[in-house]
């Protein structure tokens, strides 16, 4: 699947681009293209018609929103290569920074929308086998010898990267220094029996193949599995502390200026912050930012202490350099395991 998709993407980009160019100026209807990551597919399927109705009501204009979903870095690569996305909705700030570097988005994109331009967040939590036979309660349990911990590859997935950083942050929060954190994370990753390319792959490995004792993944994914596969097979476990996985959004300046779609694009992203948008977000198990909406669904989103990447690690750029670049700490840890 992956290679074909990868090589077809430029073709899709071209076709989508042509479709938009030809449809753009001819008619009054606005179209927007939202380029997004893989697991946001279901969320935006609900958001888009709600926004279209909202835009019809408030601006009296018809708007059609096209969606494109895929692995986040592949998606960003297509945008850089010319896929005409009006907005991007990702799950890691690092991906949007790539657009900034290529002059497609503005450097202060975080200030363009509330909450650091992240309308919702998730946290990294655990899914264990029913009854929690291995008694997994917190991060330190994952480093126990002989345990199978299913985590997607941090090199290829944002999900895996958040898990790695959450574990590192946990070790620091327990008063450990960098060396202790490194030791802890190394032990945890030595317990990983299979590295899947992305979060959904890891889910399949854990739920369908029966590999491992615990799946470490985003809250929305864990809760979804628990709901869909049935509560009689798995239990959700919240660790004492986790990472705040904010899902950032941005406007692609170059595209909206060319297509004259800035107004609709801005309204679209702002809609995500509206009570209606936040309600849909909560429905899909992402943590809403609106305190009222969050309170309403408090039973589904247990309070959890979180830290942000910026608080513990400075910036995504620094994280990338120190931890995930070639020969970085992650490489050193896995080569030695």
């Amino acid at each position: 699947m992956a290679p074909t998709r990868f090589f077809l993407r430029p073709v899709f980009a071209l076709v989508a681009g042509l479709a938009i160019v030809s449809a753009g100026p001819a008619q009054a209807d606005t179209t927007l293209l939202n380029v997004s990551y893989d697991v946001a597919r279901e969320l935006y399927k609900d958001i888009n018609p709600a926004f279209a109705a909202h835009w019809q009501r408030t601006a009296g204009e018809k708007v059609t929103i096209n969606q494109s979903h895929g692995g986040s870095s592949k998606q960003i690569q297509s945008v850089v290569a010319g896929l005409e996305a009006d907005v991007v909705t990702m799950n890691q700030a690092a991906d949007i920074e790539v657009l900034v570097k290529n002059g497609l988005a503005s450097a202060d994109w975080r200030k363009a929308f509330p909450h650091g331009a992240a309308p919702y967040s998730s946290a990294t939590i655990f899914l264990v086998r029913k009854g929690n036979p291995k008694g997994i309660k917190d991060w330190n349990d994952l480093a126990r010898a002989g345990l199978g911990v299913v985590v997607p590859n941090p090199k290829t997935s944002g999900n895996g990267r958040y898990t790695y950083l959450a574990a590192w942050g946990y070790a620091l929060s327990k008063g450990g220094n960098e060396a202790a954190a490194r030791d802890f994370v190394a032990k945890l990753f030595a317990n990983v029996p299979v590295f899947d390319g992305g979060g959904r792959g890891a889910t399949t490995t854990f739920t369908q193949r029966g590999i491992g004792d615990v799946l470490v993944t985003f809250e929305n994914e864990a809760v979804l599995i628990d709901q869909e596969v049935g509560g009689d097979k798995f239990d959700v476990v919240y660790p004492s502390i986790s990472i705040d996985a904010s899902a950032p959004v941005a406007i692609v300046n170059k595209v909206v200026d060319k297509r004259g779609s800035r107004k609709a694009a801005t309204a679209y992203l702002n809609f995500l912050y509206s009570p209606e948008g936040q309600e849909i977000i909560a429905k899909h198990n992402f943590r809403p930012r609106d305190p009222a909406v969050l309170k309403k669904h408090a039973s589904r989103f247990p309070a959890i202490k979180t830290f942000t990447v910026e608080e513990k690690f400075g910036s995504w750029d620094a994280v990338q350099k120190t931890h995930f670049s070639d020969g970085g700490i992650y490489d050193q840890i896995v080569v030695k395991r």
Partner: protein
Amino acid sequence: MASSSNRVLPGFGLSLGYTLVYLSLIVLIPLAAVFIKASSLSLEQFWAVVTAPSVVASYKLSFGASLLAAAINSVFGLMLAWALVRYSFPGKRLVDALVDLPFALPTAVAGIALTALYAPNGWMGKFLEPLGIKVAFTPLGVLVALIFIGLPFVVRTVQPILEDLDTEYEEAAVSLGANRWQAFRHVVFPTLLPALMTGFAMAFARAVGEYGSVIFIAGNIPMVSEITPLMIITKLEQYDYAGATAIAVVMLVFSFLLLLLINGLQAWTAKRTGRAR
């Protein structure tokens, strides 16, 4: 040009021209782009990328498993082709069609199916696990996937040669006093060898570049079961185009040398058995 003038059908210039233009467009220009992208790295950077421990481990797995898979396919592919050509049995056409399935099946589907079969809770894995044999998420799983995708290449290259090979030759050999093994060893096998080597080379080349089917069953454990194409994808995921193409260049050069060697061997055996073109 002298050799072209005495042909019945004209068109040497035109067909050579097409050949060169077509090859350039389809093969050479994309490959040149890979080399140009990789050349944005300095020599030390290039060397550091392509000799990183996990990358070196991936070459060993990719090339080792591909060669082994191609060798296994050569043996069993020959048997399959033999059975399909020499004997008639009920359901022969069905078996013949089945051989092509690995060509047609999207590789990811193959990968997921194999993983589901060989995972510890799968149909096959369930029985292998108690014996201490782990297939899914180990290098053995990689080998299984590569054997699966490479099989049709050997069967389909050997089959037509075998069909052309009249049984009269074996009969003549036996009537001249050869035993069955000698008839196979000295009469049939040398005729098939060039085709078998072509099949081997194609199965090998396909296996080296294979990603979709392997990635699900490999487990992708650094230093153990990461294939080289995964290392390339990993770099691309991190926007490291130059690093990705550097590894691709090494793979291309390796593969090209190995294929050149196999083609050379093939030409040599063809000459020896008097089938030189």
